[in-house]
């Protein structure tokens, strides 16, 4: 049975179901990260004066700045991958999507080094409230990056077969994956100053 409105526009919403579905999912993601941001604010304002460390005292700002640049770059390559499909240029799509996946892996490797450095100094989530919320939020964000790598790798390798049979449907899939990826980038844009700089 064919799935309806994967390409065609629904007359009631003016959108295809792919677009509406991914935005509803992202709305739920806003609430997930929103709850954690709210917890962070509650823990920070509720801490005794002078007990909450400045992120830069414990965390590596240069590594986080590098990772911010990496993630923003991956957002650009992602949107360029989608634009390449719209321009019917599959080879450029492969190039940009490969770059997106590679940049995501660089982000994870750098994050892995950061975590390893903290653990080598016996800085575990149990050490303080700050480290607890830091590992929780960045860990959840990291899992979202892993999810994005899996989805984007699928669209880069086996999933690209659909381009030859249903190009518009494939383009919509990549657009949905892109919306998710930009959201993950957007979350990091707020995490970076909140956790590392303030």
């Amino acid at each position: 049975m064919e799935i309806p409105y994967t390409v065609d526009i629904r007359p009631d919403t003016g959108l295809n179901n792919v677009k509406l579905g991914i935005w509803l999912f992202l709305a739920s993601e806003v609430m997930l990260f929103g709850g954690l941001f709210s917890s962070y604010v509650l823990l920070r304002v509720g801490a005794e004066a002078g007990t909450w460390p400045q992120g830069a005292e414990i965390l590596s700002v240069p590594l986080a700045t590098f990772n911010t640049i990496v993630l923003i770059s991956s957002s650009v390559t992602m949107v360029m991958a989608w634009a390449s499909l719209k321009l019917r240029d599959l080879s450029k799509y492969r190039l940009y999507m490969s770059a997106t996946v590679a940049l995501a892996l660089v982000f994870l490797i750098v994050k892995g080094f950061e975590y390893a450095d903290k653990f080598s100094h016996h800085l575990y989530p149990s050490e303080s409230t700050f480290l607890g919320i830091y590992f929780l939020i960045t860990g959840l964000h990291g899992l979202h990056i892993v999810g994005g790598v899996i989805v984007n790798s699928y669209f880069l390798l086996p999933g690209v077969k659909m381009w030859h049979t249903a190009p518009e449907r494939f383009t919509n899939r990549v657009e949905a994956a892109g919306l998710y990826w930009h959201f993950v980038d957007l979350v990091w844009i707020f995490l970076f100053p909140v956790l590392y700089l303030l």
Partner: protein
Amino acid sequence: MSIDSAEDIKKHVKVYLMVFAALMVLTIITVGVASLPLTIPFAIALALVIATVKGSLVASYFMHLVSEKSPIYWTLIVTAAFFAVLMFVPLLAMLDGIRLER
């Protein structure tokens, strides 16, 4: 987003590159501002303003929110309302006089 012609896409690609450059500059500004001797409330406000500008650029252009259909906007308005409620929870807790251990 309703972009169809190749010419439209090429125009949008230029916008994507301009947004990318703006995001890079704003990232450098974020780090630079953090090293200035500002009071903590002002530093927090400034960092969040810059992050909001960066986030708006990503949402508006990379996520195409500048030209979306109304069901998407309504979904996000409802989400923003509930998000605002979540952000008020710490304020309510503060008014309740809660103090947490380190």
